[in-house]
């Protein structure tokens, strides 16, 4: 039975992979079927994951179950449940989550703005310092490197590679900043510097594009390796 399931699994994955590839020829029912299965399974998978990990795993285990047991004990006069590991603060999250769903009822849909306001405010407050520290301060510090020495105060001990690297960082940073300075017309020497900045930006975008091509090729290699290796056994 297990072997039969393994055969089925291999063929199903190959069928869907080839179905997606078939779009390269032209749009067709095989592609549409594969795409619909992918979208449907993804939606179902994420629903299950979010339900069990967020709603059940966090809220229900952490507060919901305890609250229900406590209410039952109050109404029936039974023993109160143990509060060990219970975090009643989770109710705030649950209520805010519920308010978000009220968007589905137009008359009281405005209540869904409260959780959104909470998310935006809390996220901005929490991450403002992180971003300034990690993406501004440390990066500015790393850009301010000595041009002709390996460390500050070491004299002229840098090799040609370090000097050229330092000059490229200086020129790239300076001209890039000039390009994004729009309070002055990009003419004359200022305009020339801004144009140099554009070249640096183009090189950056080009490198980024090259990496993206590599990444997409990697995905293709992974699928081809599956088809020729795992499925058909033609390669090691």
């Amino acid at each position, binding site marked *: 039975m297990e072997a039969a399931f393994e055969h089925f699994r291999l063929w199903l994955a190959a069928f869907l992979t080839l179905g997606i590839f078939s779009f390269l020829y032209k749009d067709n029912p095989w592609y549409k079927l594969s795409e619909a299965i992918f979208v449907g399974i993804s939606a179902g998978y994420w629903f299950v994951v979010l339900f069990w990990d967020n709603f059940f795993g966090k809220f229900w285990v952490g507060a919901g179950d305890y609250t229900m047991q406590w209410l039952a004990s109050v109404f029936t006069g039974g023993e109160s449940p143990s509060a060990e590991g219970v975090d009643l603060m989770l109710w705030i999250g649950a209520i805010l989550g519920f308010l978000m769903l009220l968007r589905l009822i137009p008359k009281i849909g405005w209540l869904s703005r409260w959780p959104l306001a909470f998310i935006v405010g809390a996220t901005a407050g929490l991450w403002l310092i*992180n971003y300034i520290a990690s993406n501004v301060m440390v990066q500015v510090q790393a850009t301010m490197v000595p041009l002709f020495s390996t460390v500050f105060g070491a004299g002229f001990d840098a090799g040609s590679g370090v000097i050229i690297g330092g000059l490229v960082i200086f020129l790239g940073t300076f001209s890039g900043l000039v390009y994004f300075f729009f309070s002055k017309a990009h003419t004359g020497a200022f305009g020339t510097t801004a144009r140099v900045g554009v070249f640096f930006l183009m090189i950056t975008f080009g490198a980024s594009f090259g*990496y993206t091509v590599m990444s997409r090729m990697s995905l293709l*290699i992974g699928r081809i390796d599956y088809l020729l290796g795992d499925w058909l056994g*033609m390669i090691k």
Partner: protein
Amino acid sequence: MTTKAKELIAVAAILIFSLIFYLGKTFGWEPTEFSTAVSLLVVILLLASLLWILVLTLQGKLIGRRVVFLYVGIAVAMPLFMKLSQEMPVSPAVQGVYDAVTELEPGSKVLIACDYDPPTAPELQPMAETFIRICFQRDLKIIIMGIWPQGPQQANLALEKILAEPDIAAKNLQYGIDYVNLGFQAGNEFVIQRMGGSFKSMFRTDYGGIPYDELPLVRNVKNFSNIDYCFNLSSGFPGTVEWVQIAVDRYDVELGAGNTAVQAPTVYPYLSSGQLTGLLGGMSGAAEFERAADARVKGTKYMLSQSVSHIVVIAFVLIGNVAFIMSGRKSALKG
């Protein structure tokens, strides 16, 4: 013959071809491997045909887009049959990860955060496997976790593979003592932040449901201060950027990272600023890491396909530009 009939014949041919090879595999056919001479011949034929397409383009005969797809497919598939291997010099970024992990004392605790899923496995799985192999070879203790749901599952696949290797199997490593998988935790970057205070508050049980306190390896691990090195495998948000911002900059964690090629350019600035000890960028990073660890497996094998396909892409970019210029559209655009 109608187009529909031709298409049906093509599908039937693919099905028959697949059935033959699938049955062959089931009956024990050996995988095909080109000799060096055949491999070189295939590469030469590929380059010659590209040259021929360039000549056709110069003559004004343009090829269809499906030919480009076919060439890319061939460029990716053929190298997988080849014996050839590509020399990959190890870059300082990759060497940084290797040095950081090999300088750890035996028994050191390494946290591996697997924040990726199957679509990016071709790039990140070879990195995970090589990293886990190095850790086990050097008797480091591994704690796995993920803030992507499928990350810990991918880690289990890597663990299963590495634990089956003879030299690692001989060590008789025990789950809970030498390695542990804490599983997935929902909450994105807030999980990292909470881990700075207490691991247990985020992972009450491991992947299989064993309570945190019953796992000898992590019983005394309170937070990041008990971790000697952290390695993040990331393919997007939340990932390396969040690990740097929280774990590194707030809790002084020593962090190395393996990223998809798409993400790598956004992460490189953290490397030059010293916020990362090293970075494996995309498949080339995986191949370099394998070379540094002297274990040339999947990443190295895939890299030949990567290189040949890049040559084909560059060739078609050039051919496309030639066609563009030949067609006179450039002058038309200029008015």
